[in-house]
């Protein structure tokens, strides 16, 4: 593999962005690649926008990047917000049915955007719209939205099934591994053949 690939994970504090990033990092490591990850914790986590970055390649220098080849968004507005950080012809894997209203929308000061597909098309971004909530529920827990989405995103990432299996096992606590493996598989299957790159 030449160069460095960047995957950014965005969402709302409490959605399990860090766990998804950890699985991704472990998977890249299982492929024998160099990996660097970075996230911002603390105050930002209390219901605010969160961002985690995972970068992999034969040798990774910087732990951060302004642009990502793939963005995984566990919430629709955060996915929309992340359009600006996608590299040209990048892929946005977005939980389009997960809509968490920020305070200003609850108070009717702002409107929740509903034109993600148009905006993605206008930015030249490939959008993988995933009903991650539905898949997580089917897998057995709503908390697995993050991993269901990761399953869908796996179709846009150059890792073997075996590496993903090892990544999941390394990062997910044993108690909840099974339900997360299920959510991952459902997410991966949800992406149609024609959509896989």
């Amino acid at each position, binding site marked *: 593999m030449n160069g460095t690939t960047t995957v950014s994970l965005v969402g709302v504090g409490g959605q399990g962005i860090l766990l998804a990033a950890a699985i991704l990092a472990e998977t890249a490591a299982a492929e024998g690649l160099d990996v660097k990850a970075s996230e911002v914790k603390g105050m930002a986590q209390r*219901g605010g*926008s969160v961002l985690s970055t995972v970068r992999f390649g034969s040798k990774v220098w910087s732990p951060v990047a302004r642009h990502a080849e793939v963005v995984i968004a566990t919430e629709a*507005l955060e996915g929309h917000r992340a*359009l600006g950080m996608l590299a040209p012809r990048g892929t946005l894997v977005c939980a389009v049915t997960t809509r968490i209203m*920020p*305070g200003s929308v*609850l*108070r009717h000061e702002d409107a929740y955007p509903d034109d993600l597909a148009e905006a993605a098309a206008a930015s030249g971004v490939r959008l993988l719209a995933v009903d991650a909530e539905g898949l997580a529920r089917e897998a057995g827990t709503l908390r697995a939205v993050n991993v269901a989405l990761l399953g869908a995103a796996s179709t846009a990432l150059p890792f073997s099934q075996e590496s993903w299996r090892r990544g999941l096992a390394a990062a997910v606590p044993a108690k909840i591994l099974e339900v997360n493996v299920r959510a991952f598989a459902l997410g991966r299957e949800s992406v149609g053949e024609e959509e896989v790159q």
Partner: protein
Amino acid sequence: MEHTVFFSGNEAIAHGAARAGARFACGYPGTPSTEILETAARLEGVHAEWCINEKVALETAVGASLAGVRSLVTMKHVGLNVAADPFMTLSLTGVNAGLVVVSADDPGMHSSQNEQDNRNYARFAKIPMLEPSDSQEAYDFLAEAFALSEEFDTPVLLRTTTRVSHGRGRVVPRVPVQLEPREYARDISKYVMVPQYARVRSRLVLERLQALRRRSEQSSLNVLEAGTADFGIIASGVAYTYAREAFPKAWSLKLGMSNPLPYAKIARLYEQVSRVAVVEELDPFIEEQVRALGLPVIGKEAIAADGELDQDAVARALEPFVTRKAPRRRRPVFPPAPHITSPPEPLAGLPVRPPVLCPGCTHRSVYTAMRRHKLAPMGDIGCYTLGALPPLLALDSCLCMGSSIGMMAGFNKALGRKGAAAVIGDSTFFHSGITALIDAYYNEAPGLVMVLDNRTTAMTGHQGHPGTGVRPDRTQGPAVDIQRLCEGIGVRCATVDASDYGALDAAIGAEVDLVGLGVIVALAPCVLTAPEKAGEILVDDARCNLCGLCLEIGCPAIAPADATVEITDACTGCALCVEVCRRGALVCAGVEDGA
């Protein structure tokens, strides 16, 4: 003959502060700073108090400054290490009325455990520093320092050393400075240093430093004095007096304002002479900055980098260099102004998502009750700092860990009444709130301290602390009882269940009517550690008129619908919204499964 008095530098600082209109002085004793506050305590119109330590002293002075009173804080050099936490962020918030921090350094360690050079703190914090060289200057510089503090919205460091503080000299008293009142104006973007506001303030600090450097170039405190020799000296503080006596024919650049340095004035000295020495005790503070301009200078290779100097030491050290062949003249290269980042442009049209208090968090109940009793609290650092943001707007300040109680004490002492309250989390209380509470008790500061005890260090991810006894491996150790601790100090204290809004409201109401200092421990475990739903909130559509009262509590689980409100899945059933609704439109029905 002009009327003069004979003052030590420390006495001169106290008198100079009083003359400049300072009405509040505090500090912690430490040689060679102690007599400043002892003198201030004898001056009419100045309230002086010893604080429990230098950190609390600075926080108390900040509170007094916010209340509109010029304030002086005194300490020895190592004391500023203790006060470094508020000191560094105070640079960002700035002040209301002028605030001057005196650091009395002790080169030679006559009475100290180290001889750190606190001039470095002025550069570190990006604030102006004045260095008097004798008693008259110590007196005069206070008025300059307070004026600078207000004009540039910054704390000012006044740095002395043993020989200035404990030296004595004639002082000509001046007419008192006349001051306009400075009313306190609530301004969370200036005084609440959460990341989003602190980022903006950081840029302002960098711009302020550029403006201060322009002032340093013009200031009459920085004087280029002509000589007859082809030799120049740059010096500040008492070292300047040694240099003048050792080399009476030399040119000198006398720096009364030694941070930020006046580059152009330094360059002008180099136009006059071909050899320049920096005479300074301890660190090459000025020297390194002169070298960075690309100018040759005689410095620490000659002048000792430890201990005190005197005129003989300076003469002996520099004589061999003065007679040496002059270095080739060079032009100074002034460093360009630093690049300052521009704030990121948010993607147009998209709502922002700032962090918020979680649904069911009892901090929200405390803020709602405090607002009902019109209490404006000084805040502290933890999840509860989020209450400062809209729509709660519940806090007036957030400076550093443990700062709320000292700031409340200083604010209320300066006002002479219970103008502010304090809000502090349990972990922060143990971190550095206890010392401030003892200080408020000792100095008889009035006010209500709310300890928001959620039984964990929540914001960083639920770590243990001395109040819970929980260790890093989650095993249980001994725990300190906050109420017993407060009562042991002698402070009135009540503990109330923070999940019981009625009890919380009543306890705050009772404390508001009492005089003096009181603590309420608002106790309820962090909602994230108790995830079971407490109840189900139902909306009676017929009664709801969408008045918005329940929306004002800023709960992420309440959303306005068409003609009524909607409770979302995020609801934990804490029922605070039921308490604030005046129409009985919200009902708590207990959990669905009947548990």
